[in-house]
């Protein structure tokens, strides 16, 4: 047993943490995160040069990572810095392209930005419930429907779209320039888009894509969980600093036992979150990936909300302000619950597993 990161992963983590801390601090982040395109091209390229994208793919696909642990390391660093760049789409797209054996050099170098479009307004999480449809036309296909909350869709060059083909989810490639893309900054920073498809030309990549898409979504969920762990760590550390320095009634507020115990409860939940994320990352390529991924996303959803709300409450008014970084961490921690399946959705998947067993 060994819970240490490999030397390579640790180095990647260190260099990402250092780069993001120096070059992408929260004030710059806030300038980028809340206005379209929610993307800083120069920084994106530098992050790619550091290996943030290459780490997402295995060696035989041109990368140097590709496992759940690699995804975890990258996204934990992104979470610590609250980074708004569109890496989630890249992580999921890379998974799909690895499965397809497609050339992903342009993705891993950062030259081409990818987004993955699965969720819809009335089917935000469930692959089986999507209604976007593909029809054969000429030698290719056309897609019709609306894809909702496509993360990174506001700057993507290429969108990998899940659409129903003869009653099963299939995977298509759509050039962003061929679709109608309505991008927007999100409440918690970073961008997404509504992708409107209306007989939009698309290249069929995989006809029976349910398993590949499930795997990509699982990888995305591991990424989100790790991002949450990184963001929770920083939120907790900032809260502790504040408890030590903020004085009321002549003492640091950290002297009040009621706050001490709640800070301990936050710590406990964060450690639990870290553990379940490690577990989900470890199982990502295994047969029960979906089950552990759902456990992780459910636990993270609960823990992240607790950490966000407690951090604000224990700071008092200051954490209600835009100026103070904890407010942005709190928004991210709460809002990421609704990405790729919320606590209830993932709880119901774990519950369904109980029946099956």
């Amino acid at each position, binding site marked *: 047993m060994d819970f240490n990161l490999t030397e390579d992963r640790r180095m990647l983590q260190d260099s990402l943490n250092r780069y993001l801390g120096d070059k992408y601090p929260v004030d710059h982040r806030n300038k980028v995160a809340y206005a379209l395109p929610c993307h800083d091209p120069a920084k994106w390229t530098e992050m790619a040069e550091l290996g943030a994208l290459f780490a997402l793919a295995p060696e035989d696909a041109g990368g140097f990572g590709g496992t759940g642990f690699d995804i975890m390391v990258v996204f934990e660093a992104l979470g610590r810095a609250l980074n708004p760049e569109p890496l989630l789409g890249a992580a999921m797209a890379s998974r799909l392209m690895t499965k397809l054996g497609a050339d992903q050099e342009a993705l891993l170098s950062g030259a081409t930005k990818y987004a993955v479009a699965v969720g819809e307004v009335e089917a935000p999480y469930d692959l089986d419930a999507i209604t976007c449809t593909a029809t054969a036309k000429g030698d290719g296909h056309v897609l019709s429907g609306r894809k909702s909350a496509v993360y990174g869709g506001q700057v993507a060059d290429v969108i990998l779209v899940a659409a129903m083909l003869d009653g099963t989810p299939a995977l298509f490639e759509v050039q962003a320039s061929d679709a109608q893309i309505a991008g927007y900054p*999100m409440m918690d920073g970073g961008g997404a888009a509504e992708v409107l498809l209306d007989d939009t030309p698309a290249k069929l990549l995989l006809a029976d894509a349910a398993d590949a898409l499930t795997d990509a979504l699982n990888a995305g969920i591991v990424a989100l969980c790790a991002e949450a762990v990184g963001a929770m760590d920083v939120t907790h550390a900032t809260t502790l600093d504040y408890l030590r320095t903020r004085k*009321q009634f002549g003492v640091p507020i950290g002297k009040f036992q009621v706050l001490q115990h709640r800070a301990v409860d936050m710590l406990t939940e964060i450690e639990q979150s870290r553990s379940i994320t490690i577990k989900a990352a470890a199982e990502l390529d295994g047969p029960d990936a979906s089950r552990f991924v759902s456990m992780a996303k459910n636990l993270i959803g609960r823990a992240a909300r607790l950490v966000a709300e407690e951090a604000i409450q224990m700071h008092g008014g200051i954490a209600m302000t835009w100026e103070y970084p904890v407010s942005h961490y709190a928004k991210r921690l709460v809002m990421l619950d609704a990405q790729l399946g919320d606590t209830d959705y993932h709880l119901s998947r774990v519950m369904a597993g109980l029946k099956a067993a």
Partner: protein
Amino acid sequence: MDLSFSQEDIAFRDEVRSYLAENLPKRISDAVRTGAEQTKEMAEEWHAILNRKGWLATTWGVEFGGPGWTPVQKHIFEEECCRAYAPRIVPFGLNMLGPVLQAFGTKEQQDYYLPRILDGTDWWCQGYSEPGAGSDLASLKTRAVRDGDDYVINGQKTWTTLGQHANKIFCLCRTDPAAKQQEGISFILVDLDTPGIEMRPIRLIEGGHEVNEVFFTDVRVPVANLVGEENKGWTIAKFLLTHERTGIAGVGFSMQSLEEVKALARKIRRNGRPLIEDPLFAARIARAEIDLEAMKITNLRMLFKAQQQGAPGPETSILKIKGTVIHQELKDLARRALGPVAAPFPGSMTDGNIMFGPEGTANNAARYFNNRKTSIFGGSNEIQRNILTKTMLEL
């Protein structure tokens, strides 16, 4: 035991209900319903409408223009206002300073200021908190030094709600630095046009501007603006705390939010069925409804007791704690129900042809975050627990 309102109270409720139906402009209630920014003009318009009816200053004595309602009637009025999506009364002049002047002000102060509050000439804001004095308000440092017929004020106030609309501020200032903390504080009225005052906006978590910082540099204020006795301001602050307590449970707002969440869960479709048919989400709503049903009665019990005893007791802290938590939970559900559709930053979706959630839900995430404030201000929920520990548990 009888949980029903009296015949008179029911008649009163019907009167309020039909009055609101006829007099509350739809333009204004729509803004309240959708969580759109409520402008200064809207607040002033609504205040003026209520003032014409004599229903604006519900906490004032009849001799000053109050309606002379019982606590139960006040409660009914607040609940009906919520039901109709009336704007919240801006409390600083009407529910805070008004009662203070009636209890502590001179005849001159009452004659001058009270009519101006009623007719909207003055918009007051509350200058209590400072960067270093939040929960520990008595540690405030803003100084008021007597100089002839003036006080000279230096210091900083913060979190000043809607100060950007105000022309006046009531402040707690330190007038005797040598005295014990609570004994050297005075309650002073300040005109915001006085030279030496600078107000700067504070942007809140969700992006909105509703609070400010106010800086005082050698601000000269006539001694006549002192309310009550010099160095007795803490008594007034404590008096105000009891007044801030009417409607502290926010039951009306929670009832409003519960109805919204239910309607939303019926309207939103998930994977081919209404969200309300998802047992996990339905359980969340049901739990909130159970808590709120109990809170309605807890609120009425305390109201009943206040009506019998003449004043609310320390147990009203229970209303603050549980009332804010229930309301925050409902705001969480209103955001949660939307799923990823709640994600767009409010106002960021410029393509008006693209619908997201059901109408009026674009601010649901913003409202959830903004409402985290309710367990922090007006005495944080931790401070309320300290009060209960001391007064009711006697630990």
